[in-house]
């Protein structure tokens, strides 16, 4: 595949991720912080996010599995996940967290369990999407091309 074709595919794929709400403007902010001195910055932050979110999700699962769990503890964990997902621009994950916190406040255990599943799913989805994106970037760079700069408001 020619570099130009790869770049076009990359641009289209990126656009779709924004359109479908997987990513928001914060992700663009991350990309703008990447340069020759820090060429892997986005991947590094994203990687940290997935390590962190895995721990949080596991912790949430354990907590919700208990007989008389503390909603405050669940809320605190979701708050952390919401914060870090917002920091990388993982919009759909963040949105589930917003709903999740509301259900904690309502003390609705069924809805909380539902959100746990949803948040797992959204983390899984965005992880795959981003891995695909990074692979596309690597292919472009390996072929001697540059990564197109995406402009989103």
């Amino acid at each position, binding site marked *: 595949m020619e570099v130009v074709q790869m770049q076009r595919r990359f641009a289209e794929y990126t656009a779709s991720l924004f359109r479908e709400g997987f990513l928001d403007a914060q992700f663009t902010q991350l990309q703008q*912080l990447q340069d020759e001195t*820090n060429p892997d910055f986005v991947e590094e*932050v994203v990687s*940290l996010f997935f390590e*962190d979110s895995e721990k949080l999700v596991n912790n949430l699962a354990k907590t919700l599995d208990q007989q008389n769990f503390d909603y405050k503890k669940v809320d605190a964990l979701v708050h*952390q996940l919401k*914060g870090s997902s917002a*920091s*990388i621009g993982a919009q759909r994950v963040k949105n589930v967290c917003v709903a999740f916190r509301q259900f904690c406040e309502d003390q609705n255990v069924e809805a909380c369990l539902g959100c746990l599943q949803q948040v797992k799913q959204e983390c899984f989805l965005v992880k795959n999407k981003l891995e695909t994106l990074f692979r596309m970037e690597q292919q472009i760079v390996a072929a001697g091309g540059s990564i197109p700069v995406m402009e989103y408001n």
Partner: protein
Amino acid sequence: MSTAGLVSRRDCSHQLHVLAVDDSVVDRKFVERLLKISSCKVTAVESGIRALQFLGLDGEKKETAGFDGLKVNLIMTDYSMPGMNGFELLKKIKESSTLKEIPVVIMSSENILTRVDRCLEEGAEEFIVKPVKLSDVKRLKNILTKGDKGQNEEDPLLSLPLSSHDLASSSTSSSSPFKFLDHRSKRPRLQG
């Protein structure tokens, strides 16, 4: 300390040194990058306790000549942290005779007016809603470096503009100018 260490400290004396405090590893990395890309020296720690240790306020160590090179020009702290939260850290810093002149900025994902007011009243310079933007860092940096330049001349505070972001919607905003002071010059804090 090696000679090489001394030389780099002297070189760094013009670089702003920011202490970033956040329990989130993702946010630490992000803020660190924002600061580095803005040519600041950064020390990122994960808790209020660690921050106080770094600042030499843990009661174990006294300030030494070596500590001078690690002088912090700005502290940016997350509000919600387990153990000591950002507000408690802010209080400890403002209660310390050695550290109270260091400007403290609170970062929070939650823009709660009472929280903002509390922090500003306790002496925080600003309350920044997360995610922090590059423009936030640039603005802070401009304000801090203006203070440095005016050290020997007329009071630079009088010429500091109020930024539109200043003090959120706090009722204290109209009466108090941005109260940053260069702690190295040890001028007294203005009463707002």
